[in-house]
């Protein structure tokens, strides 16, 4: 009997421990607290000046990209020192998987730094369901610890695009972050060696394609089809200017029947025929570096990419005399403008955030000189005026692309309420794989785009 009692007690204990295990896992803030004290002790004076709420802790979630996560820890520390607001920081390479589940449960970070265009599309989903706080007033806030107003610091154009004002109502919902000019990257050493000029029009591009073909070199490759976003945007700009781009990205009626659209897909079709044949077979998340390697090995000349490529392929073997070069997309006609797409990331405040005011201060602080310098140490360049002086190495050449005649292209496809089976990337970018493989023609692709565009227009978020 005694034995049974003991075993009964044991099993009760087991059940209890299991249930405890199931219970909530809330143990926040404590970790961040020591940091606050430390910082406050270090720089007591400024903290007293600018701290409205000293016991506030904001949670910041930032994606860890090629720039690393140290910059975020440093910026969070600097922010706490400046304002006295503690920061509970989460950084991860797969940020969606880390913060996603708790957000489904209704617990949101106060600030999220996560760009659009990622496969999991988390930011897009928040845009589509109107779950982002309007931060237009942040633009008129003073940067914590400085005299300057946020809106005056941010470089021109960055807060007028559909990437920051997704609903086209003049209100800013997403703050522009680290920007990078995108364009065609190539081996400048190879072109010098062969005596080839960097093409400034598409006709020159095709001539170069023929010349390269004779030497057994392909004109073009791309890491994955996803890299066609920046490419297609810049291409649309260079063909029809901002008018065509805006019409196309808001799915205007008949826009895909215009001459501009036809030219656009003719170029894509022709480019596909000059693309290195093994590209589509490696255009996936596992093998895409092999496609980038084609450029390093002089097997292909151009690839669409961003400035991060230099760091990404830093360890890779390369052809002798290799030197990174970058050019804007060629113009359609001689004397026309070449365009380079400006890719930038976004930081935003979910509407479910608890400490909106403190979160807005944090967003404003991201444009402070202190933060910009910390970010720049890792190569992450904030879109603020006068940042050019902080650039080093290859970046000087990359970021000067706009000073050398290329125009900046910005924006993206407008948000629409989700349609089953119809998404931007599968419609506009991914079919390039099939065109290169030869199972789809550029005309068929255009027809599919046209049909999908009609559906997207019908579901546009106004």
């Amino acid at each position, binding site marked *: 009997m005694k034995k049974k009692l003991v075993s009964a007690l044991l099993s009760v204990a087991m059940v209890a421990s299991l249930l405890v295990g199931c219970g909530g896992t809330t143990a926040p803030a404590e970790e961040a607290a020591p940091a606050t004290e430390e910082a406050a002790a270090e720089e007591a004076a400024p903290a007293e000046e600018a701290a409205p709420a000293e016991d506030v802790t904001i949670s910041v979630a930032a994606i860890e990209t090629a720039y690393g996560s140290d910059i975020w820890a440093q910026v969070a520390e600097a922010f706490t020192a400046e304002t006295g607001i503690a920061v509970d920081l989460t950084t991860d390479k797969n940020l969606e998987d880390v913060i996603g589940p708790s957000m489904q449960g209704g617990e949101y970070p106060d600030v999220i730094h996560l760009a659009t265009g990622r496969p999991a599309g988390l930011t897009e989903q928040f845009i589509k369901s109107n779950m982002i706080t309007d931060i237009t007033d942040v633009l008129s806030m003073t940067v914590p610890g400085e005299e300057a107003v946020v809106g005056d610091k941010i470089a021109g154009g960055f807060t007028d695009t559909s990437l920051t004002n997704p609903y086209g109502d003049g209100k800013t919902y997403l703050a522009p972050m680290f920007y990078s000019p995108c364009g065609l990257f190539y081996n400048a050493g190879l072109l010098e060696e062969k005596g080839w000029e960097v093409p400034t029009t598409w006709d020159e591009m095709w001539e170069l394609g023929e010349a390269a073909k004779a030497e057994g070199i392909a004109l073009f490759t791309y890491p994955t089809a996803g890299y066609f976003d920046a490419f297609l945007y810049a291409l649309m700009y260079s063909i029809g200017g901002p008018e065509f781009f805006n019409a196309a990205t808001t799915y205007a009626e008949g826009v895909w029947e215009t001459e501009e659209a036809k030219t656009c897909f003719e170029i894509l079709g022709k480019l596909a025929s000059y693309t290195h044949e093994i590209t589509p077979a490696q255009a996936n998340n596992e093998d895409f570096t092999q496609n980038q390697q084609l450029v390093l090995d002089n097997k292909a000349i151009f690839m669409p990419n961003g400035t991060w490529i230099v760091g990404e392929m830093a360890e890779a073997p390369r052809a002798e005399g290799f030197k990174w070069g970058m050019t804007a997309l060629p113009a359609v006609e001689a004397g026309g403008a070449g365009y380079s797409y400006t890719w930038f990331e976004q930081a935003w405040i979910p509407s479910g955030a608890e400490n909106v005011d403190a979160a807005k201060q944090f967003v404003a602080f991201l444009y402070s000189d202190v933060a910009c310098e910390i970010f720049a140490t890792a190569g992450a360049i904030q879109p603020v005026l006068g940042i050019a002086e902080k650039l080093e190495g290859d970046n000087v050449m990359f970021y000067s692309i706009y000073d050398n005649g290329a125009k900046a292209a910005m924006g993206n496809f407008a948000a629409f309420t989700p349609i089953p089976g119809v998404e931007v990337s599968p419609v506009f970018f*991914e079919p390039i794989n099939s065109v290169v493989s030869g199972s789809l023609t550029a005309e068929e692709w255009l027809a599919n785009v046209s049909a999908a565009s009609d559906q997207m227009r019908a579901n546009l978020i106004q």
Partner: protein
Amino acid sequence: MRKSGSRNAFLTICIAPATILFFIFMIVPTFNVFRMSLFEKGAYSPQETFVGLNNFKVLFKDINFIRSMQNMILLMVIVTLFTFVFAIVFAAILTREKIKGQNTFRIIFYIPNILSIVVISGIFSAIYKPENGMLNSIIGMFKDMSSPILWKGEKLVMLSIIIAMIWQAIGYYMVMYMASMSAVSESLYESAGLDGATKFQQFFMITIPLIWTNIRTTLTFYIISNINMAFLFVKSMTSGGPNHASEVALNYMYSQKDAGLFGYSMAVGVVIFLFSFALSAIVNKVTEREPLEF
């Protein structure tokens, strides 16, 4: 009387943890999948709109979904067929025949099972690499490879995934068949041998009928595991590409969730659930035989 009462209480307490956990982590989520498939909802937005069976109506007209189901069924049929044949033949050879290094073979066949799918994808990506990949290098010794075979290109990508999946699965099923084959009494083979039955006859008349219950069980395993494995392999090897040529149903479900269609992706989940359930039931029914005793 008092004794049996306390005994029941004790049993209840013992069973309770498993039951509660099973209820919380299996029944409730499954029920939720079915419920959510009737709603329209973003993965992160709290609003949900009841849309009845509308998700399913759209689903059966969605070409991408149909293609992903086709791919999944193709994988299930081909992989099951080849794995089954290879596993059972290898098992028969390793249990019935005396060959040198039996244990070594057993280990070699089983190794893929210990590896994680991501590692296997890495191995096969290296094998399938268009330039200097193992497969293309070997073929290159016999024929001109100036335009390499694109194993992960649009045309061959499904075949490449099939090969990787078969390679991964053989060992596991082989060990299962070996376990039941070694339970078959040696005397049956001896007497059959005396009666003049060849090895082939022995295999089909003795081995197969006597391990039939085991085969039936593994068939259900094949169906369920291939649905999951197809997702894992596709996710880590090709992400469904190039241009959705290797999309499978579970991967499609995932991508629709990411597109902000949580309810719709749950409808895909429901279809897969019912499909695998129905298929297992049919296979179970069709393969029903009088169990043989020995």
